[in-house]
């Protein structure tokens, strides 16, 4: 089910996000990482991602700003937010801004994998439905 799912992971904690990317790769996802918002936006502009995992607390451009920018470039891409205990309020804000879901750090990799599967499945169905009714 995870076959050919392209995921972008964005967090300024480089070590953490690299490890997370590795563990998701083991579960069959194709992953790329970015360490700050602008870099992530550039990658989204260039590549096609099914979903983006975004840390809320980042210096400079924070997760919510990045979310808005990503959604502007590609409204179909699904976003999952990672929040810490200090930024729980961002969960609601993010969901109101169109994020698919949130997870609270520390992240359980399996839970993230489930969420990503659901998010990508939703994206696939929505696109399929859109093409069906365009026909």
């Amino acid at each position, binding site marked *: 089910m995870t076959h050919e799912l392209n995921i972008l992971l964005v967090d300024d904690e480089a070590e953490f996000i690299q490890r997370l990317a590795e563990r998701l790769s083991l579960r069959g996802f194709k992953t790329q990482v970015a360490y700050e918002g602008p870099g992530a936006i550039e990658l989204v502009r260039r590549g096609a991602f099914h979903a983006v995992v975004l840390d809320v607390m980042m210096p400079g451009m924070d997760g919510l700003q990045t979310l808005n920018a990503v959604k502007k470039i590609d409204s179909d891409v699904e976003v999952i937010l990672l929040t810490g*205990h*200090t930024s729980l309020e961002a969960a609601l804000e993010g969901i109101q801004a169109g994020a698919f879901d949130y997870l609270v750090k520390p992240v359980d990799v399996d839970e993230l994998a489930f969420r990503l599967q659901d998010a990508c499945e*939703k994206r696939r169905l929505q696109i399929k*439905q*859109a093409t069906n009714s365009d026909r």
Partner: protein
Amino acid sequence: MLRLLRNMLAGFRARSEPPRALETDEALQTGFKLRYLLFKRILNANDKVLNMMAEMETALQGSRPFGMSFTRSRCALISANVFQIIQHLNSLAPGGNYKGLYARFDDIQQQLGRMLDTRPKTSEGQLVLRLDQIDKTQVDAAGGKMATLGEISRKLRLSTPPGFVITAAAYRLFMAHNRLQEEIERRLQAYDTGDPDQAQQLRSGIQQLVIRSPLPDALAVELGRAVEMLQASNGNRLHLAVRSSAVNEDTREASFAGQYRSLLNVSPKHLQQAYKEVVASKYTETAMSYRFHRGLRDEDVVMCVGCLKMVDAVCGGVVYTRNPLNPAEDTLLIHSVWGLPRLVVDGRSGADRFVVSRKEPLVILSREIVQKPLKYRCLEEEGICRYAVEDRESLQASLSDAQALDLGRLALELETYSGEPQDIEWAIDGEGRVQILQCRCLQMFPQPGRDPEAAEAGASDHPVLLQGGVAASPGAAAGAVHLLKKEVDKLRFKAGGVMVIRQALPGYAPLLDRAAAVIAEHGSLSSHLANVAREYGVPALFGVSGALAKLTPGQVVTVDAMGRRVYEGAVAHLFRSVRPPIRLMAGTPVHETLKSVSAHILPLNLRDPDAVDFRPGSCRTFHDIIRFCHESAVREMFQFGRENEFPQRASKQLLVDVPLKWWVLNLDDGFREEVEGRHVKLDNIVSIPMQALWDGITMAPWQGPPPIDGKGFLSVMFEATRNTALLPGMQSRYTERNYFMIAKNYCSLTTRFGFHFASVESCVSERVPENYILFRFKGGAADDLRRHRRVALIGDVLGEHDFDVSVADDVLRARFEDYPMEVMQHRLKILGYLIMHTRQLDMVMANDAMVNHYRNKLKTAIAGLSRRECQERP
């Protein structure tokens, strides 16, 4: 995105419209899948909210401590999930009139926001106030301690050292400077684990942050001016005692004994540093753990700081105007040491003890002069020092009888003025004048009368290990001995242990929430530790010499504080007099905040899905919203499947050889292959939870209704005439049949057999944290008593299998979750069996004997089910 929404709208045009002709089966199939996905997301979020609400309910009981971050985090996450549920429901049924939920959500969310924003809004007022400018009305500006001291020095002819207070306004100014408060809050919120190392780092980090922060210029200038004025009237050699005077200290039955730092004999040129150190002590382990256990929010403690002229005491100590453990005794209690009174409150050494009658003329009833080998005195330049006291002096009374009586009179005057028993710290200076340094209300802990002989007789099998000392906190408790000699021993202390220490130092207070009892070789009833032990209800026996040598680590002992004995082993009968656990959180600001936000989250007003007001506008709480959404989502899924002209997805009747009719609606991937006709065979069903339920339902043939006694039958007839909801034709919606809604990993079953209503909803897959079973059971035709007996019986059986059961009236709810697939399947089988075999049991629930009979029958059958399970496995 808009385009997508529009397409979805087109895909799920309102139910009344027929599907558009050009839509292919494939499109509909996609529509089904998408809906089911949204439906699952609703269930998932619903489950999360229910769990968090259960946590809030537990916290509301108030017997376990929690902080503001608990309330804040639960509110934030519940909001996020409730919003998701509303969003998903609206996407699932765009024509379904659910938009009004957003407005209800916003309303509730705004109210919660207001309640959680508890930070003080202004920082007006003077930065420094002289002691002779303040009285009790200025508690909010000067803090409790200093306001009281100002009051008594102005209204009573008592001598207090001159000084000033650095006010609440000054504190707020300091904390706002460079956004210090924000940074502290950020760090506090980031910490949410129980890891002690991390907690230690957090605390010391915050303290350093405070100490390193510069004072705002305005405050620095004011401090300089205040010192100059004090020097003008008291000479240039003036030194200061700098101590906390927190707002909210000494209130709400919270003593804050020994919470914060006091710096003694500070040179005025170091006042700024001393001020910051006292403020930083808001974040010591003692203070933070105390706040946590007493339900105080960080922002509840505003650190005003008192600066008094330092008194180089010849002797000093503490007066209690009553014995807190025995208020009826009508005595005053004076503890006195050589030098500064700090030695008494620190519990570091013994103190002379005078018991004085409270009736005029005051008389000394008893006098206990102990060896006082140490004393604190002021150093010339700055600070204080512990000196050894010569043998002769150390054995002398630190207070003369005349002084003791004087002190007693002063103390009584103070008590009369404040109207409550007082805890007074005093010092006598080089010229023999009594100075009042601090006073606050003394909490009383009256003990029920006890018969000492009976207590001893009951313990006759247990050797007495230690005897004597003073009861510092009442009660009796048993536990394993922990000898605490070094700082690191604190880390090894295990919950439920008996803490054995040399000195009753305030630093041990953070262990009190885990300790069964405390034994200290030194220390008195007036020490800070004793104060906190009484508040926490932990029995404490102080002044027991040789305790560390005589007790062995790990040995189980019973401490009987009032009997002043330590017994070997656990003396059970002594515990009978033990107080019930104190509901520490009740009435505290943290608890109050949780209570007020809960009122907008927890109550469920929309109970009846068939009622007219079961609509978005009637949702008053988050619970109402999720209940409404869950019900509506199920209904939407059901109706969409039934009414859509898509034969493969219409509901099918299950082809089985059982007397009842069962209908199955496939939501997504519940069938092995699509079915065109009106019936589905059992072997075409691949829904994991449905298969398990069905196994339970068909495990044993139903033997027909149990034999009814005459009364049981009559009560059914009576109920049927009285309750029209039970009459045929009045039944609602899809309850006329037994309905399964299924997908591979999902199943919901709604059954109604006659008068009995049961529903099961379950997700079972490899995603263990998403697995759950929700069971609801309601109704029955017989009278209340019989119905309740049956509900209790089912609750009993489910409880034994780890279901979380709640019963309100004759409605039973049970949850079971987060177990691997096989365990979930086993529990579903039990439910299937119960649903079939208890359906008319209330008619035979005539008496307890019958109940027991059926209980055993059910249990045997269920045990058989588990056994069969084991045998079936390879």
